[in-house]
């Protein structure tokens, strides 16, 4: 014996959590896994389909494969565009915010407001906002002579969805960056002033390195959320015009619920899930490795 007391009472504290996780996560996921290897003709009759759904989805020549890869590319394009804009804007705005005084609270509250609005409400706001007859945004752009029409023009639809997401979620990046900036001791700024550093040099050598950790978190959160975007494009564009804004989540709902193709939908959602997991894992690993190499 190594002198440690073994006490199995700990299990009483862990068991409720295990039960909860079993019902909240493990069972639902296993149901999806179960569906993904079967086919159904309705009437609750299922038969074995092996990995056919997966092969079909990942086959670039099949109809399902083309449809899937199209949605996947659109989703990536959307995520990368929106998250890049949000990170750049978020840091820029955080740098402009006041550092002390009553205006800090006031500006933080105003900035955080969009985050408090539910997704489908945001969609509705922007759906009306972007209408060219009564919407302020749409009418203004149309009035300027631009060919702006969310229901007809793919570019208009894309711009609207991206701007909507930037409006909704830049505040998160601002708040995280602001917290990171506030944590930098004054001595760093004073030292940089004494060292004769320019504003850009202060940003590059002091602020950005100190923001590294919060930015990793911000990018991870924003990537996961934006990659799963659903309610807003459904309300604003319905995935259109054509398939222009049909992202993975929208297509998934169409297949699984609209077309009652439960097996294909299950297979698709598993692949979807694995993509998010992989991207986040790879991103996080690279960022932490990078940091470790810098330390070394």
């Amino acid at each position: 014996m190594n002198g440690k007391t073994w006490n199995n009472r700990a299990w009483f504290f862990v068991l409720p959590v295990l039960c909860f996780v079993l019902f909240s996560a493990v069972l639902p996921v296993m149901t999806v896994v179960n569906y993904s290897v079967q086919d159904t003709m309705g009437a609750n009759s299922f038969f074995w389909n092996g990995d056919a759904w997966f092969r079909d989805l990942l086959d670039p020549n099949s109809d399902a494969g083309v449809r899937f890869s199209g949605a996947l590319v659109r989703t990536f394009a959307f995520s990368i565009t929106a998250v890049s804009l949000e990170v750049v804007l978020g840091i820029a705005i955080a740098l402009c915010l006041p550092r002390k005084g009553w205006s800090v609270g006031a500006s933080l509250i105003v900035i955080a407001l969009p985050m408090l609005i539910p997704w489908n409400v945001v969609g509705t706001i922007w759906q009306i906002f972007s209408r060219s007859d009564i919407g302020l945004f749409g009418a203004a752009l149309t009035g300027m002579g631009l060919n702006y029409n969310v229901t007809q023009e793919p570019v208009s639809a894309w711009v609207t969805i991206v701007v909507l997401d930037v409006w909704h979620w830049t505040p998160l990046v601002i708040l995280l960056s602001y917290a990171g900036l506030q944590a930098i001791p004054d001595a760093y700024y004073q030292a940089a002033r004494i060292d004769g550093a320019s504003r850009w040099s202060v940003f590059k050598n002091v602020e950005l390195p100190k923001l590294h950790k919060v930015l990793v978190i911000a990018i991870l959160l924003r990537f996961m959320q934006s990659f799963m975007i659903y309610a807003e494009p459904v309300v604003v564009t319905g995935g259109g015009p054509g398939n222009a804004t049909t992202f993975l989540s929208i297509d998934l709902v169409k297949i699984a619920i609209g077309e009652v193709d439960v097996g294909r939908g299950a297979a698709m959602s598993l692949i979807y899930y694995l993509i998010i997991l992989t991207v986040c894992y790879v991103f996080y690993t690279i960022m932490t490795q990078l940091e470790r190499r810098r330390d070394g």
Partner: protein
Amino acid sequence: MTRITFDNVAHAYPSAPGAKVDYALKPFRHVWEHGLAYALLGPSGCGKTTLLNIISGLIIPSEGRLMFDDRDVTRLPTEQRNIAQVFQFPVVYDTMTVAENLAFPLRNRKMPKAAIASRVTEIAALLELTADLKRRARGLTADAKQKISLGRGLVRADVSAVLFDEPLTVIDPALKWELRSKLKAVHRALDLLMIYVTHDQTEALTFADRVVVMNEGRAVQIGTPEELFERPDHTFVGYFIGSPGMNFFPAKVSGARAVIGEHEVALGAAYPDLPVDGMLQVGIRPDFVTLAQSGGVPVQVKKIDDLGRKRLAHVSLGGVPMVAMVPDSMQSIGPESRVLMAPERLLVYHNDVRVEGMAL
């Protein structure tokens, strides 16, 4: 080559109109010479950091003028003052190597590359950072980082002054000694005006040529470490410098004799013209008081501290506590003993300020 002149510099934080002005730094008038190392020493809240911030430009004094040579810098921003500063906690640029960190202040001032390289090599050698020059700064230990901060403070040869704000706080005690003597050596090698803020008297006394002892916003005494030790101008300096601090007794003084309680002791000088009102005290460093079997004045021994190298006796002279040295030869010490006080070491204070006596 810069001389810093404080022309009645004072600072008070804004207070309610009509209220008594509450000075963080009371009017201060002095000239600091190039090439010397000054230490600002005092307890927390004594105004030493306020004085440092006035020099660095972080605070604009509410009164008086600050001159670097003949230039009035009172209202100039930090970056135009040509000073360097080392902070309490290491400030390094994480993404840069040690060499890049040291070169940063010079690069920003568009110094030629070759000159930068030679200066960086010189400073790195002084601080023993040469082996680490190519390493990233962020992976280093706290004391290595603080050495980088010190290096960045010292790298510019043309600075008016280098300010140190308690720079050894984060350093391991064992390394403190080493870095402190290193700083002293660097100061001799580089011929700069250095200003060092600390609340640690050992640090101040080993580092500085002149120590500015501060208390309650006032510079109580400015002098060499010897002067502060041998002739404290104020009872505060006596208490604050030296370990343990100076002994003080209320006394009556007439001519070259003082009466402490009911005992008369001889003084090293005569004091014929003492003011009649106010409080008179005589003070003496424990180092000049010795416990003895006979002679001197009688005391009650309270306890003996054995510090290894020396023994200190805590005694009571007519109810007033004092500290005396125990001679090595003295073995058994009873509760009743006597102390000898060197007359020339007894100083006289009137209302806490030292009175100059007339040589006998």
